[in-house]
């Protein structure tokens, strides 16, 4: 028993907020005043609380653990296999080999992003969250920010490790020494892109409110355009097929390594701006729905 405080009616009455237009009668009742200091909450509180949430569940450790294992494991494997084959890389950048691991790793980021929002609906915890922080926009912003930073840092570390690994493994096989911009795009660029893809999943999770549903939607969004394009044989659909190829998420990712599957379409940093715009739109939609719907 920690809080049996004697009621302090006087000071309490003084503290009562005078509601404008409301407060039909002066509260003549005794009321309780807590010794706990009153704090006006802000985004910082929501960020601290979301950080505690994301680090205190197993699913975070699982998805990020699998991400690291996939990216580093596949990177190491491809590097070793190619090095053993004693190839001539013809002056190509070794960074592009990191693409395969990150493409698979994106599934982990999608899953974690969706779980960050949608799992709260499955457990009913979203109510606790919204009672603790009635500003729904703040909750969504805090979730998105914390997730984005976690996803970005983990992906960046993985991509950098794999990049260094490939460069050191393959430099003797006539691989090009990556330029500064190639390094930037192959590590920071692609990590920003994937962290945004995860944040998009987080927004979709908040809109759909169902983990399995949202994960399915996001994985379909990654794979479907490419697969559909593969089966567009009709020549009248050539343009559509081309666009599906070029704007599919795997192709957009490959642009960070400048080995795009196609010659036209987005180039340089375009994929990042495209993903930024799509994610911003999805977050705006999630925010509008969050405000409107009952929890």
């Amino acid at each position: 028993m920690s809080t049996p405080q004697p009621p302090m009616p006087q000071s309490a009455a003084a503290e009562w907020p005078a509601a404008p237009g409301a407060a039909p009668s002066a509260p003549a009742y005794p009321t309780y005043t807590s010794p706990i200091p009153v704090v006006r909450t802000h985004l910082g509180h929501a960020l601290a609380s979301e950080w505690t949430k994301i680090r205190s569940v197993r699913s975070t450790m699982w998805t990020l653990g699998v991400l690291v294992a996939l990216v580093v494991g596949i990177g190491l494997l491809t590097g070793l296999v190619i090095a053993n084959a004693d190839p001539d890389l013809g002056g190509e950048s070794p960074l592009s080999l990191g693409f395969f691991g990150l493409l698979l790793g994106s599934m982990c980021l999608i899953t974690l992003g969706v779980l960050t929002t949608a799992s709260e609906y499955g457990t009913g915890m979203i109510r606790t969250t919204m009672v603790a922080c009635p500003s729904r926009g703040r909750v969504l912003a805090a979730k998105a920010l914390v997730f984005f930073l976690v996803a970005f840092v983990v992906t960046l570390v993985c991509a950098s490790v794999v990049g260094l690994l490939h460069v050191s493994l393959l430099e003797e096989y006539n691989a090009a020494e990556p330029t500064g911009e190639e390094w930037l795009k192959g590590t920071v660029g692609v990590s920003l892109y994937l962290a945004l893809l995860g944040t998009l999943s987080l927004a979709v999770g908040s809109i759909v409110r169902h983990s399995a549903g949202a994960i399915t939607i996001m994985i379909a969004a990654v794979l479907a355009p490419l697969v559909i394009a593969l089966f567009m044989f009709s020549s009248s659909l050539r343009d559509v097929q081309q666009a599906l190829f070029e704007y599919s998420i795997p192709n957009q990712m490959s642009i960070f390594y400048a080995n795009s599957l196609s010659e036209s379409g987005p180039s340089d940093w375009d994929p990042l701006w495209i993903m930024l715009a799509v994610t911003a739109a999805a977050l705006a939609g999630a925010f509008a729905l969050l405000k409107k719907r009952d929890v």
Partner: protein
Amino acid sequence: MIELEGLTKRYGEKVAVDNLTFTVRPGIVTGFLGPNGAGKSTTMRMILGLDHPTAGDVRVDGTHYDRLKDPLTNIGALLEAKGVHPGRSAQNHLLWLAQSNGIPERRVREVLDEVGLTAVARKKAKGFSLGMGQRLGIAAALLGDPRILMFDEPVNGLDPEGIHWIRTLMKSLAEQGRTVFVSSHLMSEMALTADHLVVIGQGRLLADTSMAEFIERNSRSYVRVRTPQREALLDALHRAGVTAVDGADGTLEVDGTPAEAIGELAARNGVVLHELSPQQASLEEAFMQLTAESVEYHAHTGAPLPPQQQQQWGESWRKG
């Protein structure tokens, strides 16, 4: 203080909460009573700003919930759904809640101690029994040491010791000058804890009175009569214009006639009586009568207490 004004919630055609107006005052325990599906939880969700009212208004200490800058130090709530991630430990659950409102972290230890969960603080919530989950929910409600406490069906899943504990807790919280608002579908539970009673049925306000007044107004008094000469007594009562209904174990129950009058009537007609005792109907019966009327009003059935209703009660109790 919680003030509801014409609070209404519609889901399509269905009216879940219908024009509720009442005030929950500090310093006492206010019981919020109604059968399952009466709209209690919906009302509580609207108080907490989780559900948007279709019409009307609800204020917490004069402010809309979503305008509160430090909600958890104003109002602590235990909602029906546990609202805990099964994979998170009790301690971490309370920690993120404390952080979200800038509550000192020592409070986590304090409330865990207060509800008796210190030993399992690091255990995952999915291993908790219903009662332990309930205690964790209560710990979360107490975390901000709030002026207002709201408990949705707090005794659910608690063992007798736990039930006794929560009753004492609610009373002491109210004695400290806090507003305590507790929902239940068990009249007997409310009779032991609540000072004031708000009863709803089908989303509508049925009663808003002090507990004492409710008992006085709603409990039916009747006289139980046991006799070996059943037919003779029924004849005599009938001739005197008194109606009797069958009670349990072959007894008769007479409404609205004092025991003395029935005794004298029996004596005049030479009927032997084995029992003649004035009875007070239980509060549970009074409550069921009250809510049954609201059901009857909507369903247009004749019987005041249809057996189906009885069954629902049993079910709801077991489910709870």
